[in-house]
């Protein structure tokens, strides 16, 4: 059994009177493919926002790779190895597909911003190398054919996949996917499942997946956490979750 990469301990956040996430304790292990499910409004996206530093917890601790994430801004956490996609796609719509990825690569550059002013040999060498890596990454996802098109012109499915590529470009150890299959047809969903497994193996990272489509979640997750009204009501393997009476009750709504 591998160590926890992400550890949440009694995490709570309140918005005014609403407790969106309530005393949640959960973890994601190194290299694991974990799921996070729950009915609408259960607090899944809010939990992602807490993990990525968009919100700070009202109570509780979040540790990533053994260090607390308290007070860290989203970009700090990205540098430390957490990347995400958004439920309501947030690409850089006016940038080209390759620029969307290129921007996410920026933290691997050796040269500083001002060196792009001088445009010396090092600058050009690094930029050329980066172009190559961008192209490679895009081609893994079959997106290099549209690399010069503005991101907003892509089909819905392509946009979802581009978000994953962009997140991968930051070089994460933990990838958070917020409903990646939303709006996809069954064959696209099958393709996505294959892709998520491939990404986990190829880039050796842990994935935490929020998804409403049970076929997808049950099909690829090794362990699943279940939220309802901000509380964690269950945790276990897909087989265990499928038969858990509390989970069934939460989904049937009684």
């Amino acid at each position, binding site marked *: 059994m591998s160590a926890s990469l992400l550890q949440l301990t009694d995490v709570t956040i309140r*918005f005014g009177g609403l407790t969106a996430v309530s005393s949640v304790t959960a973890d994601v292990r190194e290299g694991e493919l974990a799921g996070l499910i729950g009915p609408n409004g259960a607090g899944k996206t809010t939990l992602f*926002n807490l993990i990525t530093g*968009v919100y700070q917890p009202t109570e509780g601790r979040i540790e990533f790779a053994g260090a607390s994430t308290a007070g860290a801004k989203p970009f700090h956490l990205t540098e430390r190895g957490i990347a995400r996609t958004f439920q309501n796609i947030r690409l850089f719509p006016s940038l080209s597909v390759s620029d969307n990825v290129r921007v996410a690569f920026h933290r691997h550059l050796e040269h500083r911003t001002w060196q792009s002013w001088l445009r010396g040999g090092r600058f050009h060498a690094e930029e050329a190398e980066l172009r190559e890596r961008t192209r490679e990454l895009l081609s893994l996802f079959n997106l290099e054919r549209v690399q010069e098109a503005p991101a907003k012109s892509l089909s819905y499915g392509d946009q979802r996949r581009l978000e994953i590529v962009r997140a991968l470009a930051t070089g994460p150890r933990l990838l958070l996917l917020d409903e990646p299959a939303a709006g996809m047809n069954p064959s696209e969903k099958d393709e996505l499942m294959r892709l998520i497994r491939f990404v986990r193996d190829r880039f050796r990272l842990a994935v935490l997946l929020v998804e409403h489509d049970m076929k997808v979640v049950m099909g690829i997750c090794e362990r699943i956490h279940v939220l309802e009204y901000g509380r964690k009501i269950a945790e276990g393997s897909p087989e265990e979750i499928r038969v858990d009476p509390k989970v069934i009750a939460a989904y049937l709504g009684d």
Partner: protein
Amino acid sequence: MTEFLQQLLNGVLLGAIYALIALGYTMVYGVLRFINFAHSDVFMLGAFVAWYSVEKLGLPTQSIGGGLAALLLSMSVCAVLGVVIEKLAYKPLRQRSTLTVLITAIGVSLLIQNVAQNSRLGFGPNPKAFPALFPSQQLHFGALTVSTHQLVVLGVALSLLGVLYWIVHHTRIGTAMRAVSFNATAASLVGINNDRIISFTFGLGSALAGAGGVLYAMNYPSIDPLMGTLPGLKAFVAAVLGGIGNLPGAALGGLLIGLVETFVSGTRLSTFRDAIAFGILIAILLFRPAGLLGKLKVEKV
């Protein structure tokens, strides 16, 4: 002490005028979510309509009837103007970005100023002496001196605030206005005609600005086509200070700005008085961006 009371009175009067203008900014922001830059020029035009009604239409000066007639005329003309500006310049931009609308508003503001400054089409660039609309007399209460004009300003401003409160809270259209500013999409779903409410809001806000212009001019010797800019900006600050979109907030903000400005004018820093409002604005946006009475909205991710 007398000095203090005198300043307090002056501050309240100036504040009441800022409040009238601020209400217009805040109402428009409530329904359309943008800063109507041209509002300060409607304020200027309000003063000019009153001037015009005396100088060209021959309304009597120094009379209560004449003064009220000039005031009502100003408010009506400004209301119509506000509605027309909205229809021509802002309505076609309903779905566009805030900045596009903001720039358009700046354009409208420049257009009004430049037309007004033009001697053929407008009033010409030179300041005009503003007539005494109401009977003017100095009243003495102990050591305190109050002019009848100041009383008129106070009376008119308070009555207008009262009328506005009544409209917003006790009429159908006022309720619809509040609904639109709470949630425009939901309002249109329950059958409210948003465009009509927006027109009404512009008319109402512009009428208040027009009244503000007349009252402002009464306490200054002259008026000119650029007179709206600074009071307009300060009134905007007042609206932000109170919490933009919030009506009592705008009134409170106006009062505060008027008081601060008047008291600063009495000190050695008087030459900096025009910068004070902006200082307050910056401080407010940094420390309490929702304003004194407003509620902050957090962006959902």
